[in-house]
Structures are given as C-alpha cells and as structure tokens.
C-alpha cells in the first residue's frame, strides 16, 4: 500500500484502500474538550466532522436568570484561557444598555487587563501548539512565562485564571493595588525576553513543522467566518480595536500585523507580533493612567437594566467576540446571545482545513487555529 496516496496496487492496477474513521479527541490533552471525526484513506484525511458539545453549559440561558453582576462572574467561564477579555465584552453590553459613563481610569485599567489577558492567551496558544508538535521545551517555556502573568492577575483581581468578574459593568471591581504599575512594567520586561525566545524557536522548530500546512485562502477565510489572528494571517487587516474602537483604543498607537500566506506558520507569526503590539499598548495605557483613585463599584442588587438592545463586538485574543443583549427593563437580561470566534474556527474553518491534510499534520493545523472549546460550546 502507498501510504501517501492511500492506494494499493493490485493485479488490476491501483485502487484506493477503503477509508476508516479516526477520532481526534475528545481526550483532553490532545484536543481540548472537543473531538473531530476524521475519515482517512491511507495517511490522508478525506473528510472531517467536528463533534462539539462537551463543554456546553448553556450560558446564554443561565444569564437570563441572573443580574449583571452575577453574569460578570459567569462571563469569566466563557473562555477559561482569556476570561478578562470576555468580562469586558459582557460589561460593555450592560454599560451601553444602562448608558453608564465609565471613568477614564477604569477604562484604562480595562484595556491594560484585557491586553495582558491577550498576551497570556497567546502564550497558551504558543504552549499548546508546541506540545502538539512534540516540542516539549516550547510548551514548558511558555507555561512558565504564563505564570508570571497569572501572578499579576492574582495580585490585581484576586484570581489567577478566573478574575471573578474583575472587569464588571460600571468599570472595574476594584482599583489597581499599590505598586501595580511597577509590577506590570517588570512583567512587560519579562514578556519581551520571552518574545525573543519565541522568535528563536519560531525560526527553526515551529517553521519546520508549520510552514505550508493548513493553508487558508483569504476568500475561504471570509466565507467560513474566520476572524482575528486567523483572518489576519490570511491577509486581511481587520481588527475591531482599530475598525470600531471601544474603551480607549482610539487614543492608542498600535499596528495590526498581517501575513499573506494563511498557513499555520503565518498564524504563528501573527501571534508573536500581537504579543509585541499588546506590550506596546499596555505601556501606552500605563503612561495615560489617570492618577485619581477609583471608587469601588458596588453591585447594584436591585438595579434594573433599562429597556433596549445592543450588539457589542470586541477583539479578543481568538478573534471577534460579540454579545447581543436585549433587556425588557427587568434586573436580568431578557436575552443574551454570545458570539464567540471559535464556533466558526472550530467547525467550518477546521473541517475545511483538515480535508486533504496528512494525519500527522492534524494536531499542528488544529492548534494553529488557537482554539478554545469553552467559547465554542458556551
């Protein structure tokens, strides 16, 4: 049998070997809480069918029974890997419905924390992709650096992975503690060292394994609904932070890196460049941080959300996040639709990229999409 073409040669000539089904996932270390059923012929994937649902918790429905402050805590769990970014989308939806003016200092803190969360999420992306490639050093280096960011999250929010709704409706749950600015500066210096390390790995190990696989053409990316780094790696410079700025992004100077190739390595490149841009953003935001202290946001237990509807979009680490919130004037939202980037990346985009790939490339393609089953299932 010819393993590359999936054919075997018989007396009558060459014919395909019958395909069989191969499950990728849902065993957690390999795939996250998610599976793809691959139909393979020889070494080649001829069909892929995503199998979501392992993390479906029904957040949209749960939020209809809870007040915004309770929902702020729930919004942590929308994506474990970047909870602060999800905090922010939810908080903005409530703020716009209520017409709340957010103090400049709170807006700046929101941006700082959201960008640190993006860096942290990209570090995980780096780690899990390395792990998928069998490059254990990259995985350990990345997760080692991630802990520095988590230390800072713990210092500021009280939680390492889940900030308990730190970016909440009305601003932030509490002001930066004393010395936060200095600690963030120190953290950014570490992140810069890390980026240089990543660059060295990228140019050898990651490039050798990721170049030319999982190529997503730009028209396919648009058709399949790709957003964020995946779309930018295919050549479109779209970024909600720049195209429809929220918080203080319109006052900050940053680039939207793009690549034309659309392969797994291009997505790797975008990831590293975005960490650099986020470091730039946090530095600028720190310089702009107004000095007056922030009054703590007291949860309005009996507060009602004014009647209305909004659709809020944010650029989170994985792409475009959206919240459609409809209120009828009760203390709970009447409907809260959550749009995550990964419903698109993990079903249409992934199925498209896997067809025709070699089985050995499946983990690299899979993790190059920066997937998160939690925000896909919600």
């Amino acid at each position, binding site marked *: 049998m010819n393993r590359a073409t999936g054919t075997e040669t018989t007396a009558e000539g060459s014919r395909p070997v019958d395909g069989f089904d191969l499950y990728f996932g849902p065993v957690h270390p390999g795939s996250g809480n998610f599976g793809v059923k691959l139909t393979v012929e020889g070494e080649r994937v001829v069909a892929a069918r995503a199998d979501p649902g392992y993390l479906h918790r029904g957040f949209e429905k749960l939020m209809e029974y809870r007040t915004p402050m309770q929902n702020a805590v729930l919004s942590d769990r929308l994506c474990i890997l970047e909870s602060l970014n999800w905090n922010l989308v939810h908080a903005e939806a409530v703020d716009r419905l209520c017409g709340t003016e957010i103090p400049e200092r709170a807006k700046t803190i929101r941006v700082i924390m959201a960008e640190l969360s993006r860096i942290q999420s990209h570090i995980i992306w780096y780690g899990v992709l390395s792990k998928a490639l069998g490059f254990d050093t990259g995985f350990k280096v990345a997760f080692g650096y991630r802990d520095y960011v988590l230390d800072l999250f713990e210092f500021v929010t009280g939680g390492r992975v889940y900030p308990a709704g730190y970016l909440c409706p009305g601003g932030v749950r509490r002001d930066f503690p004393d010395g936060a600015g200095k600690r963030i500066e120190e953290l950014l210096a570490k992140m810069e060292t890390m980026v240089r390390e990543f660059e060295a790995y990228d140019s050898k190990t990651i490039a050798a394994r990721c170049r030319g696989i999982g190529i997503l053409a730009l028209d396919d990316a648009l*058709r399949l609904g790709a957003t964020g780094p995946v779309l930018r790696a295919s050549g479109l410079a779209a970024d909600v932070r720049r195209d429809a700025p929220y918080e203080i992004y319109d006052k900050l100077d940053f680039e939207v890196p793009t690549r034309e190739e659309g392969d797994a390595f291009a997505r790797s490149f975008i990831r590293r460049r975005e960490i650099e841009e986020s470091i730039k953003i946090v530095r600028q935001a720190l310089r702009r941080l107004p000095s007056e202290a922030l009054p703590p946001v007291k949860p309005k237990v009996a507060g009602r959300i004014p009647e209305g509807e909004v659709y809020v*979009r944010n650029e989170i680490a994985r792409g475009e996040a959206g919240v459609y919130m409809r209120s009828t004037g009760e203390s709970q939202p*009447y409907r809260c*639709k959550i749009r995550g980037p990964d419903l698109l990346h993990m079903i249409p985009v992934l199925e498209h990229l896997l067809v025709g790939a070699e089985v050995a490339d499946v983990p690299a393609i899979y993790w190059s999409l920066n997937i998160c089953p939690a925000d896909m299932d919600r």
Partner: protein
Amino acid sequence: MASAQSDTERQELLEALASRFGVEPRVAADGTVWVSVDRGRLSDLLTFTRSEGFDHCSAISVTDWPDEQVFELTYHLWSYGDKVLLTVKSRVERRQPTVDSAIPLWGPSAQIHERELHELFGVEFTGNPDLAPLFLESWDGPPPFRKDFDWRAYVREAFYEEGEPREQGYWD
C-alpha cells in the same frame, strides 16, 4: 467612535434601506444601525445588504416572545470595507418558525449559526442542508432555549431525588 468615512457610508445605507424597502432604520447611540423588516421582505433586504458590502455575518440570533407568539430573528452584519455594523430584525410565527437560509449570502458562516439556532430554538431554515444538533446528545425534549422550557424543573426531575436530605434545597 466612528470615523468620518463610516458616517457617510452609514447615511447612504439608511437612505437606501428606507427608499427601497419602506423601512425605518435607526442609528443607535453607539453608531450601530438597526432595521426591522417584515418576514416577507427579509430575504430581499439581506440580499441587498450583502451586495452593499456587508461581507461578514457576525452572528444570527433568536429572541423568543411567547406572549406575542413570535420569534424575533436578528442578523448582525459587519462591513469590512465601510466599517458599519448593521442589525436586521424580523419576526416569524412561533407556531411555524420557518425562514429562508442565509447560506447563499454568507455561506458556511451563516450555516453554523442557523444550525445552532435550530437546535436551541427550533427555527427551521429552508435550504440549510445540515441542521444536525451541535451540543445536545439524545435530546428529545423541546428546544431548550425557548422561554417556556423550564430548565430548573427539568434539572430537578432529571438529576435530583426528592427524598434525599442533601438535595432538599432543590425541591423547596
């Protein structure tokens, strides 16, 4: 928040929508455009928005209004070129919720949103070839995100025992 370019584009869009479809689009305080349209003209209007450069179907959603016996569909559309966010709303009969699929306009990105809404709300999208359940396994109850599905009662019946002292809290 919005650039001068998107202001002009937004104004042109408002005028085009109003004159072609007799609808009354409005611009919200955050610069997003909202328009409601009758179910009969929904497909035409969506086709028009697609031709006007709304190339990204950000999300499709359903809001359930059992008292009025309608489902409200919302299409959240973004134009990468003009940088305008548009929401198209339309109401369908709750007893027979059928709409044309948006796959011809936005392809697989619309397909997956419709597939989710079919599972969670029971809306039929004519022309969508794959409406298989995404999340729930062996579920034969009503679509669970509908307002009249009492999930608390369901969870209590399915997972907790009334006589069990440690689970009394769920029955009080």
